[in-house]
């Protein structure tokens, strides 16, 4: 595969996929994790969410699929207000949001295939899923996705036998088999080495392009974010500090997001690394 220095240019549509309106989360301890986050993401756009640890990145994506319940504000997916849903409605909407986790969060003692198929749980009744009798089209799709992420031969291996990069590929397949409209990606590369990190980011962005998926990717590696996405949102103390194209991430902007530091050098160094990567 050709190494890529430029962000993917995805088709910009006017269809609005996700809209957050003044989303706020206050934890019972009194910590304000998010304050009045308002943003719109059109269909097919891949957005990187950057910010220091504790900025509220994880909370933000968990408030969208309501693994964490927001305190106030709205999250509207394709016209449906997620914050107002009851248990059944929430389950139906969750099927449309695939999630990829930092520590992969595979069910370690299940096989790769079972992990991928678990992405279909929202579509299948309890007993069918209990006896692993998934519809043939789900099984076929699981095989296709495993082939796409390069793990077809691993299908019957137990998840805990896989390496970190492989596990994250299974995590991606599990999210995609849901046939989602939106991907929520939480620090996909935090536990991976730099090379695997790039491969995983590239895979996620390619798949988003293939399937015209919108995605929010939490990431703390600014350089990696700049390489792959066409829009960056910077979060600090739960407040949006920056929202724009990756070229707009000047040292001044990074200072407002991360605090005082010699950013110029960091960015330059990253660029050099990038060039070396291309040269090789």
């Amino acid at each position, binding site marked *: 595969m050709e190494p890529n220095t430029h962000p993917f240019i995805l088709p910009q549509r006017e269809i609005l996929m996700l809209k957050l309106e003044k989303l706020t989360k206050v934890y019972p301890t009194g910590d304000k994790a998010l304050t009045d986050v308002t943003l719109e993401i059109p269909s097919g756009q891949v957005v990187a969410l950057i910010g220091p640890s504790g900025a509220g990145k994880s909370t933000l994506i968990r408030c969208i699929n309501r*693994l964490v319940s927001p305190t106030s504000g709205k999250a509207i997916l394709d016209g449906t207000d997620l914050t107002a849903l009851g248990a059944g409605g929430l*389950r139906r909407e*969750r099927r449309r949001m*695939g999630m990829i986790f930092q*520590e992969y969060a*595979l*069910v370690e*003692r299940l096989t790769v295939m079972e992990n991928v198929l678990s992405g279909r749980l929202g579509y299948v009744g309890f007993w069918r899923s209990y006896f692993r009798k998934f519809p043939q089209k789900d099984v076929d799709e699981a095989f296709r996705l495993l082939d796409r992420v390069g793990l077809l031969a691993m299908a019957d291996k137990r998840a805990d036998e896989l390496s970190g990069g492989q596990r994250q590929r299974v*995590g991606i397949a599990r999210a995609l088999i*849901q046939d989602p409209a939106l991907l929520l990606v939480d620090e996909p590369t935090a536990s991976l080495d730099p090379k695997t990190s790039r491969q995983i980011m590239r895979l996620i962005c390619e798949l988003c392009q293939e399937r015209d998926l919108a995605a929010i990717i939490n990431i703390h590696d600014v350089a990696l974010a700049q390489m792959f996405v066409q829009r960056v949102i910077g979060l600090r103390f739960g407040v949006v500090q920056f929202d724009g194209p990756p070229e707009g991430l000047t040292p001044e902007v990074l200072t407002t997001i991360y605090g005082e530091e010699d950013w110029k050098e960091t960015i330059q160094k990253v660029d050099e690394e990038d060039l070396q990567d291309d040269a090789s």
Partner: protein
Amino acid sequence: MPISSDKSGLKVWQRRDRNTQLLVWAGWLLGTMVFLYCWRQISDATEWFFVWDAPRIAADIGDRALPPRWAYINSLWEPIWDTLNIATLGTLFALVLAVPVAFLAARNTTPNRYIIRPIALLIIVSSRSINSLIWALLLVAVVGPGVFAGMLAITIRSIGFCAKLLYEAIEEIDQSQVEAITATGASRWQIMAYGIVPQIMPAFAGISVFRWDINIRESTVLGLVGAGGIGLQLQGSLNTLAWPQVSLILLVILFAVLISEWVSAKVRGAII
């Protein structure tokens, strides 16, 4: 950790400062006194004449008990089979009942923290606090003597044990795996089947075999109160002072315990 310095400035390592040290000494003193008092009470309740005579009696019993009456083994096969059944069926039924109790008792799966969880914990503690022999005593009075009472006693006693270990295992699971399954839009039961059950399976298998091993030991004595199994023969032989039979039964029990330990070690090794 207090470190005081003496005059020359050298640091003197001390585990505790003076007051704590005094408190520790007082604690030891109190403990020793309590122990001596307890010993005194036991000693007062003891007929020391018999105790001084004990070596002779022990030798006498040993004399009579050996060699064991090997022919008696033929009337032991059925009690041995009963004992095995009491332990195995008791463990099986206990596991069936312990699983829901454990899920109700674990903080992360209980449907209600303030009503249902305390009830589940109460079931666990009552079952665990009372020895299976006492349960057997009670059940013999209720359902009549026999294997059934023994099996029920083992079941009731094991529920608490298994449920306690199981709910601790449930509380220790990796929550991110559960989160991932939740995020797919899975229902409550699916989350349990995919996110929680696979994680606690090794613990469940280990607990089952561990408890089965214990139950083999316990079921050998249930017969003493009439709840079936080889203990019944032991009681009978003791009552008639048939010491050669007693020694054979004890050997059989010892053998059974060794086998059950071996089996449980094998099974545990295979599963985990």
